[in-house]
């Protein structure tokens, strides 16, 4: 499963130098049970069950601040994204359909949120 995560995400967890800039940048840090920097070491230690069951994959806003600012080009956000994808795929359901979107639209809504929502809730 570790290999699967690495392949889908394109992340090499060995590149991490454990500086914590991802967690320092994360706007959802306090809502997460497993913090962004820990995602990298969990993958490294092959503890994927914990990640699949973590609250963090629901709390991540996919803002990619962690990806943008990572000095080692590790991209922890892509790991979180990947684990979430694996959960969604396993469930086999799409949690968001394009038809629903028109009803949900709000002029105040940032467009990035829509893109993120599709990333998070569709296969």
């Amino acid at each position, binding site marked *: 499963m570790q290999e699967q995560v690495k392949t889908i995400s394109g992340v090499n967890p060995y*590149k991490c*130098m*454990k*500086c*914590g*800039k991802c*967690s*320092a*940048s*994360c706007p959802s*840090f*306090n809502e997460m049970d497993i*913090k962004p*920097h*820990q995602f990298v070491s969990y993958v490294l230690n092959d503890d994927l069950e914990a990640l699949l069951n973590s609250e963090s994959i629901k709390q991540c806003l996919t803002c990619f*601040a962690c990806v943008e*600012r*990572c*000095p*080692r*080009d590790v991209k922890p956000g892509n790991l979180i994204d990947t684990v979430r994808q694996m959960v969604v795929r396993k469930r086999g359901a799409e949690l968001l359909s394009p038809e629903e979107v028109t009803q949900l639209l709000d002029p105040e809504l940032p467009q990035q949120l829509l893109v993120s929502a599709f990333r998070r809730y569709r296969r």
Partner: protein
Amino acid sequence: MQRIGVFVCHCGSNIAATVDVEKVVEYAKLEPGVVHAEDYQYMCSEAGQMKIAEAVKDKNLTGIVVCSCSPRMHETTFRNAAKRAGINPYMVEIANIREHCSWIHKDIEEGTEKAVILARAAIAKVNLNAPLEPGESRVTKRALVIGGGIAGIQTALDIADAGYEVDIVEKTPSIGGRMSQLDKTFPTLDCSACILTPKMVEAAAHEKVNIYTYSEVDKVSGFVGDFTVDIKKKARSVDMDKCTGCGVCSEKCPMKKTPSEFNRGLENRSAIYTPFAQAIPNVPVIDRENCIMFKTGKCGVCSKVCQAGAIDYEQQDEIITENYGAIVVATGFDTIKLDDFDEYAYNQSKDVITSLELERVMNAAGPTKGHLERLSDGKAPKEIVFIQCVGSRDVTCRGKEYCSKICCMYTAKHAMLIRDKYPDVNVTVFYIDVRTPGKNFDEFYRRAVEEYQVNYIKGQVGKVMPQADGKLLVQGVDLLDNRQILKEADMVVLATAIEPEAGVRKIATMLTASIDTNDFLTEAHPKLRPVESPTAGVFLSGVCQGPKDIPETVAQAGAAAVKAIGLLAKDKLMTNPCTAKADELLCNGCSTCANVCPYGAITYEEKEINDHGIRENRRVAAVNTALCQGCGACTVTCPSGAMDLQGFSNRQILAEVDAICR
């Protein structure tokens, strides 16, 4: 026909573990010209060299092939051994079966196959080798040091003390470099200016040291022992002989809106200025881009107030041409630009500063006269956050992959100095790793923590958010506590990565000295020749070679000086006999070779040529062997095949290719 001996080295297990050396010997014996082949544990050892000498005597050898390590390692060793045994040193060829073979292969069969092929190629080449004699070239007893910081000053003083003339070329109006901008130095906390200015004065007063400030290297030609360098002395607009250094001109100058380079733009300077009080020479320059007189033709205040009549608006740039035996590069560093690091709000807030700027803030001659205050409103800060590794250890396009090496120590220094002078100020340092190898370095850092209660937090800062009330909200992480931290700070100091000074690329190109992907100059060998450039006669001093602190810089400066002195002490240098040679019968006088020659070694002459009985005047290429470096560009560009490199002739190289493809 040559009588060739082949000597295969085991290099302990370095070669023998991946190459079947006995098989190489066996196959070598089958090659044409080979009359002797043997293998030995360490060919470079005295016993190994004895074996070569014995074989030369017993078998009457005329050529030698040594299958061993890289020729960069031991070619000289074996050439000298051959010479002692009575063979011309250029009759020796090395087949590199270590770096090119055993070290890069895991499979013994593959390794052996390649070793046999490489040996075969070398044997094919030796069959066509001819004895060569090196020439001699003279050594100009004068050195050039590029850069007048602590590295350049120290190198120049050491060379001058040995009795040789030295010129320092410094591009800014004064020598002193980065060290002159620093307030205190770690780990002893002595004042930077107090230990630097005596060196500057010593250099200026030394009868063997000649300083060109406000000058740049414009052109370099020649080679080791005899470089010719054009130095461009930019027009100072002030007569150095007349000026008394009174400073009235700077005081009265009405144009005071140019950011001071010396104070890192934290303060403005006048258009006519000396960078700092202890500047050497203490003669101002007019910054023509910002001077009203040069822009509009109407001002002339400085000229009117100058009692000595030293102001000269008509002064022109001047080119000085000088010869040098050795050149030392000491171009130093700058901090990287922070435009790509928006998250630290460096461009948004005046209270987010780099560590080098903090040096100026803490210095008595700086913009705040040494008082620690916020640059936005002049208020005394109560909470200061330091962020380490800003742009260092960063593999993205924003930063630098390397560790800048000095930041951990200067941050500990800053934190300690602030806590000492202002005990009510809280200091927090966000770090990834604290790296303090060096004499009394870790003790220094621990003192900052234990005696001065500096709060070190393991983790990085994600962003700095300037608030409406002027405070800075710092969002970081404490990895040991696994919690995110929001901290209100009055000042944020960024330990910004350092990079080689921008001009180094141009200088390296002029010197044909190699630089790495980070623009640091490359050393000839990372361990054994750390202060020499691979380009003969060019030496490296200070941060231009890699990040280092002051003690290391001074040590390296001394080492570079010793290497330069070693060169200058020689009266003559042996030149490489592997130079180009034109076959006058084939040359058609097209000038293609002269156009590609990077050393200007090829000229053309009208000459009477006897072409199989037909005598006629022809225009043919002639190579100046003193200038030729044997690069071979001419040999591949010559359309008629008239150019050949001695020791690497086209025939020899094709014989090698044939042997490999056989």
